[in-house]
């Protein structure tokens, strides 16, 4: 392989690729949103009852955490452009920490529900109406898949951070950081829809 090929670099292309990937992520969740709409339409009352049982405070705190993490993500990119590497790294570390905090919070929320006997296929849940089984089924699947994305996002940001420390990401070569940021914002965006659908619309 020639050096010319190794040095081939197209930031705009890399960004197009990332946006296309985000589109596939949206569609992946799209399938679940379709299921949610249909089942909600069929069981409005039970979905209302289900939402009343979720912990609004934990949900709101997690929303706040993710929104703040999106802000620190933007800060990280902005600082890098201003050639303030230390500040950029700090903001990135904050983002990762907030992501972890979100997961911890989610862990407590889920375990509380599981301790109450509410989880897929549990006798407690199966004794309830179809609408509530579906509501909690969707709750676990959708927030679970979202949580998995947060885990992947945290890993991705950690890799980016290592690259930044090693000097692989620099102010004029920031496409990795930018693309990782786009992915993080998507995770945030999906939560922005999940939060009202499960916690607020009661």
């Amino acid at each position, binding site marked *: 392989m020639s050096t010319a090929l190794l040095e*081939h670099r197209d930031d705009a292309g890399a960004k197009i690729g990332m946006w*296309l990937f985000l589109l596939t992520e949206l569609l992946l969740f799209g399938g679940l949103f379709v299921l949610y709409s249909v089942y909600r339409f069929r069981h409005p009352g039970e979905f209302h009852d289900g939402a009343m049982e979720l912990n609004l405070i934990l949900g709101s705190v997690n929303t706040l955490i993710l929104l703040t993490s999106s802000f620190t993500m933007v800060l990280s990119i902005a600082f890098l452009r201003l050639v303030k590497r230390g500040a950029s790294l700090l903001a990135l570390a904050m983002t990762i920490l907030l992501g972890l905090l979100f997961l911890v919070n989610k862990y407590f929320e889920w375990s509380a529900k599981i301790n109450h006997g509410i989880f897929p*296929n549990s006798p407690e849940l199966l004794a309830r109406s179809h609408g509530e089984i579906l509501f909690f089924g969707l709750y676990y699947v959708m927030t679970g898949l979202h949580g998995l994305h947060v885990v992947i996002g945290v890993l991705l940001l950690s890799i980016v951070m290592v690259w930044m420390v090693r000097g692989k990401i620099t102010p004029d070569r920031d496409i990795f950081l930018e693309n990782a940021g786009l992915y993080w914002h998507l995770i945030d965006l999906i939560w922005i829809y999940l939060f009202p659908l499960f916690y607020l619309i009661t």
Partner: protein
Amino acid sequence: MSPMQNSYLTQSGTRRGLLAWVLSTDHKRIGLLYLVSVLSFYTVGVLLGLLMRLELLTPGKTIVQASTYNAFFTLHGVIMIFLFVIPAIPAIFGNFFLPILIGAKDVAFPRLNLLSWYFYIGGAILVVTALFAGGGPPDTGWTFYVPYSLRSGTNVSLAVFAAFILGFSSILTGLNFVTTIHRMRAPGMRWMKMPLFVWSLYATAWVQILATPIVGITLLLVILERLFGVGLFDPAKGGDPILFEHLFWIYSHPAVYIMILPAMGIITEIIPVFARRTIFGYKAIAYSSIAIAALGSLVWGHHMFVSGQSYTANVIFSLLTFLVAIPSAIKVFNWVATLYKGAIDTAPPFLFALAFIFLFSIGGLTGLIQGALSVNVYVHDTYFVVGHFHYVMFGGTGFAFFGGLHYWFPKMFGRMYSKGRATVALLILFVGFNMLYFSMFLLGLQGMPRRYYDYLPEFHTGHVVATVGSWVLVAGLILMFANLLHALRKGEKAEDNPWGGKTLEWRIASPPPPENFEEVPVITSGAYDYGAR
């Protein structure tokens, strides 16, 4: 050493032997990796099909138990669809020729491209594991319909996960191609100057990106249902199996266009070269690819006419199904119009293209028959459907794939095969194909249901003809591949442009040099400039 003698096949890098292939990010080498792996699984799929036909030679048990037969048709479907028809043309010829056709050195993301191949191999290994592991091979059919797929004790989860991984591979290839076409075209390669194979790959790539995630989440849900019993598709818990069918076909109908659009692209490359004539209706063909991709995503409900979905939905889906036939018909019209007054060279690639037009037209028109609501009720889930999609998928995509193989073989390997033997092989294939699948139309109209292990005596004649046809078909396949394999070692050296093509791949050496072009080509003329006749 002059660059003419240095080809991508012999290039010396830092790695040697097999590693120089499985770690290569060169799009041409990745194309060959796909060629070898896709054809290996194609062989397995053909063998399974052959065994199914053998079983159906007589009513009752011929060679295997009913449960084994169920595993046969499931794996035949999964392997043929996910491991052969979907990746065949984009992953093999798309990888190999897309960059060359637009005058680029490689695809936009070469390493991602290699990763896609590893996903493909990973998925394929899972499929093979599903064959032999604990619960036994899956028996649900390739559609994995709930609720049976939730209850079956066989390795459904493994097979479904394999399909999920293969979907990932397909998405990444699509994403790579869209970016490549937007960013890597050589100077002067404007959109309306691109070879039409590139247009068809572009439309295909969009379908891969937009439709595949839907089946991804659907398959994931099947796995979650089997593991945790969530209940989203389980009627006992309030779930609706019809929603599974919707989500499944939202992908799986557009997937049909992932399979057929690149095939149409190959035919569009072959026809003008062997008719020595400018393609008729360039823009119509280019836009019809996009139209097929767009309209094709709105017709999935025609698989569900008897599922109990609303009558209004049935009428709308039926109407849209009729509409989607129009852009396909535009292409057929343009191919035939290109032939008119052409100076035709009846070389094997051209004969394959003709066979494609004939078989695909039958497949397409029988599709319309099923798109009509009342007729659909009659032929639904019969051999008529099986005949229809084999005419489209095998007679269409399969024959176009073979045509592409014969068209580009001299370019890819720098050797020419025996044209006489290739023509004989095509004739045998064509006869066997029609014996095998046309009898299915008749069997279907007689009322033979698909996926049945046993049948009534009145269907016997049809089944015998089909089974004998399958032997003829396989004889043709063996002759065709033997001819190509022989040429690989002993074939005459091919010229750089044996067919007189005008697209960029014919301007470089056979086989192509590692970097494709010595200098960046500047495009000044169209892809099919044979002059008016």
